[in-house]
């Protein structure tokens, strides 16, 4: 198991007021993303647990691209990875932000 922790500063806070959301399943080629609105407005943290070792560079690039595109300020993402491909990771992160955009 490999643990990665990627912290970013964001341009602006994430939209919506939902406090928590979860998307995806830990299955082959899939992952679950738990999002919690627990950080200050301009920071974002992505914590990853994966069984696939040695893909730090790919995770770093995918997460950097995601933060640049969605500016998810205030959100902490906790990922349990089942060996998902980068495109699936991007999709789940985008779905997670979308779920948080709902008003409570």
């Amino acid at each position, binding site marked *: 198991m490999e643990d990665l922790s990627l912290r970013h500063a964001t341009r602006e806070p994430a939209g919506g007021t939902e406090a928590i959301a979860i998307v995806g*399943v830990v299955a082959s080629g899939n992952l679950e993303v738990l999002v919690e609105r627990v950080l200050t407005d301009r920071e974002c943290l992505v914590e990853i647990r994966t069984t696939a070792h040695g893909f730090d560079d790919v995770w770093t690039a995918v997460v950097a691209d995601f933060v640049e595109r969605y500016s998810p300020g205030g959100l902490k993402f906790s990922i349990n990875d089942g060996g998902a491909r980068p495109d699936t990771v991007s999709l789940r992160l985008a779905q997670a932000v979308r779920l948080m*955009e709902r008003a409570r």
Partner: protein
Amino acid sequence: MSTTPLQPLTAPATVTSWYEASARTRTRLLLDPGSFVEFIGPEKREVSPHLKVFDLPEQFDDGIVVGCGSLGGAKVLIAAQEGRFMGGAFGEVHGAKLTGLLRGARDIGSMPVLILFDTGGVRLQEANAGELAIAEIMRAVIEARCAGVKVVGLIGGRSGCYGGGGLIAACCSSLAVSEQGRIAVSGPEVIETNRGTEEFDSRDRALVWRTMGGKHRRLLGAADAFVDDTVQAFRDAALALLGEAGGFGLEILTKEQARLEARLRDFGTCADALDIWSAMGISHADAVSSLPADEFITLADAFGRISHDAR
């Protein structure tokens, strides 16, 4: 930024396949909109204490969603297994969440329980804890039923309802099943591994489906309702089964024992489900497997329902 409320992210219950949906989607669409409240949600991170030993990934809810909500305006407790996480298998935490829900139901006494099975049985990486969980859950189902609580099982997921899941299902007040929802204890691969392909060819999907699938279980009386593969169909079936008379005790178990003895006497020499269907008096038994859900329900209803409230 738009101020219009965001639409739901998934399709409505009428067009959502139960088989394809996740445990969370099934739960959300089965219950009255917005009524679900989760117990020990993923943010509590109550993960399996065993999987890390095997360097296997955990899931924040350990593959089961438990909570309460309302169905047709009435309060219910609900548990939904995620069949895609480790085949929906029972581990220590997964099992404890269901045991706790059922004990709560027993203590409350007035809230029925819906169990959305989707499981291959015990999670072998935590086998002892999983086996114990199955025993605890079976006891908890019986205790809840003795306290007057209805426990209804809904079965139609990709992992079916196998192993200890099949045993727990057999303890429920009633079951609704779709064609995809297989119910058994030993699964096809287990039988083949232990007894050979001559006994059971696990790659013969038609054989698997007509032996363990929902249609056969409905005709045999092991499942009380057969439903189409939509969340709405399962919701309608759950409402209907909850509306029926409950009750549980020695008298019902005695009747059930007699029913099972009669079943063994009538069909004990049949080598295949097709032989059983013919022996039941179905004229075109070989056509049953390909019947659409609505036509099959008409056929099954014509043969009546074996109402016993135990199996």
